[in-house]
């Protein structure tokens, strides 16, 4: 597993455990007690570290390579019978955004999310989760499909941002994002958003203007990357840690600001240490959010969604 610099005390302990196990392979040494002690230590260390992650550390965790990504959720039990659908019907299929039909706890739904990929090959195929206009237009198409058949929409947000490129600009990246936000705000079916990793700017809000916005405990959600912000306001990306703190991009701050509705606690040491557990937690949170809005008819649902976003900014930080 990718190890983060601030986790060094933990990785050192884990290496020690590995070493002990390796040694014990050779003979009948009784090391169970010793390993147990070390494992307790690891647990305490993780509790201490993850209980007070700095914003900059959360940025690292949110982008952790082994954190469950969109497809890990979809194929790892969150969605049954997932049936991917492809293409924007105008230009291309963009694998940076995954979408399709499936069942969430038995109920047919449309699921959409950015996929960053897990290895070099898949990262390239998914363009590191950075969508082009055709990706956002596919998302719009699938949201309209959900609306037409009265299916709830589940989105999983995890992107560094929309892809910055000549082709993307030529095909109307700005329009594609704007229209995607607009469609989020217009569909008359429940739209439940979960920010599972990195909620990067316009590329994230394109799938995130929903009835409920849930966010993982160590995920981040920001108007600009801390590196980008630092290079503009501090004139050097080396100030990214300060920018991460100033931007208030943690789930805890965003809940206070009323930008998200609920924090989904992560397993000890982050989602990357127990993906299955995380997927189950996300499922429970989505189920509860869907339940919250299930009683509303189309008109009431849209009115509440619009009111939610129009009213944002009224809550300040404590």
């Amino acid at each position, binding site marked *: 597993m990718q190890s983060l610099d601030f986790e060094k005390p933990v990785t050192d302990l884990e290496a020690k455990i590995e070493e002990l196990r390796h040694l014990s392979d050779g003979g009948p040494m009784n090391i169970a007690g010793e390993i147990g002690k070390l494992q307790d230590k690891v647990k305490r260390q993780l509790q201490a570290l993850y209980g007070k992650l700095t914003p900059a550390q959360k940025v690292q965790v949110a982008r952790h390579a082994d954190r469950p990504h969109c497809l890990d959720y979809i194929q790892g039990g969150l969605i049954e019978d997932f049936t991917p659908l492809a293409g924007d019907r105008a230009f291309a299929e963009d694998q940076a955004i995954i979408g399709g039909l499936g069942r969430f706890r038995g109920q047919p739904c449309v699921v959409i999310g950015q996929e960053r990929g897990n290895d070099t090959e898949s990262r390239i195929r998914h363009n590191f989760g950075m969508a082009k206009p055709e990706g956002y237009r596919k998302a719009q198409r699938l949201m309209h499909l959900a609306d037409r058949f009265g299916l709830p929409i589940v989105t999983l947000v995890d992107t560094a941002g929309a892809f910055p490129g000549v082709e993307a*600009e030529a095909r109307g990246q700005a329009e594609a994002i704007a229209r995607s936000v607009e469609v989020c705000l217009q569909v008359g079916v429940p739209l439940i958003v979960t920010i599972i990793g990195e909620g990067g700017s316009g590329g994230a809000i394109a799938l995130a203007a929903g009835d409920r916005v849930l966010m993982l405990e160590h995920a981040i959600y920001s108007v600009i990357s801390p590196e980008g912000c630092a290079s503009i306001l501090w004139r050097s990306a080396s100030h990214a840690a300060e920018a991460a703190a100033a931007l208030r991009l943690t789930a805890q701050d965003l809940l206070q600001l009323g930008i998200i509705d609920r924090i989904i606690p992560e397993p000890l040491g982050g989602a990357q240490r127990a993906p299955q557990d995380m997927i189950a937690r996300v499922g429970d949170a989505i189920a509860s959010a869907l339940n919250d809005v299930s009683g509303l008819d189309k008109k009431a649902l849209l009115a509440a969604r619009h009111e939610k976003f129009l009213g944002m900014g009224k809550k300040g930080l404590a």
Partner: protein
Amino acid sequence: MSWLTNLVRPKIRGLVGEKKDMPDNLWEKCPGCSAMLFKRELEDNLNVCRACGHHLKLDPVKRLGSLFDGGAYRLVEVPKVPQDPLKFRDQKRYADRLKDAQNKSKRQDAIVVGEGSVGGVKTVIAVFDFGFMGGSMGMGVGEAIVTAARRAVASKSALVVLPASGGARMQEGALSLMQMPRTIIAANQVKTAGLPFIVVLTDPTTGGVTASFAMVGDIHIAERGAQIGFAGARVIESTIRETLPPGFQRAEYLRDHGMIDIVVTRHELPETLGRILRFLRKEKAPRRDQGPFLTGPVPHGAKAKG
């Protein structure tokens, strides 16, 4: 100081190599052709260079005066929003940056809203002020657009927005990101009421402003040569490591790629807006021989680019 000294001084300064780019506040160098332009004359021509037709940035109040019939309009008051909600601080406190911008501009934020008529059609116009923190969109700007939209719906007016913005105001963090859905909801309130929502993209319009209300208009007009896009040119260059095509992210480029309906000169804008609004509101054509909304003076020597 005589007219002659005004004219001559910058040239002399140029010769002695002293402060070539900033002669004094009576003169401005055209970013298009580098000609030294007499500021008062430039202002009389809506900040369009008479030599090359380059459109320099225009003060939002002057803009409102240039668009409303007879230059007559009422300012629409925008409710105050929390200042510096995140207590953001980089090398300087955002609260101080904001105060400086407010003191310098004598306005609350990077936008001005007015109401009146354009081509005889009741219209609310919101104009960004690029000079105010790069026209960045935070809660103040978002609130102004929401207010302008409400006003338009309440008074059955069209809504015209003229963005000029570097994008979201990052010092307001995710609250500025939330202005994207907010302003789109506002735009849709106008459209749902059956009223026109027209966007006039001016130089520059980028980032979260382009990617929100500015791209969901009934009609998109852009001023000639205006830079319009989502990602910044430098970001793109560093991502793809190749040079950008000529005219990239200019108004004409966006028109050619299907994102803009009409590219106009600043002097054509009032008449174009009036004509379109009258079509959409099913008003009779104006009499050809009169009316305040006919084409204004065309800049001397201006030639439309491609």
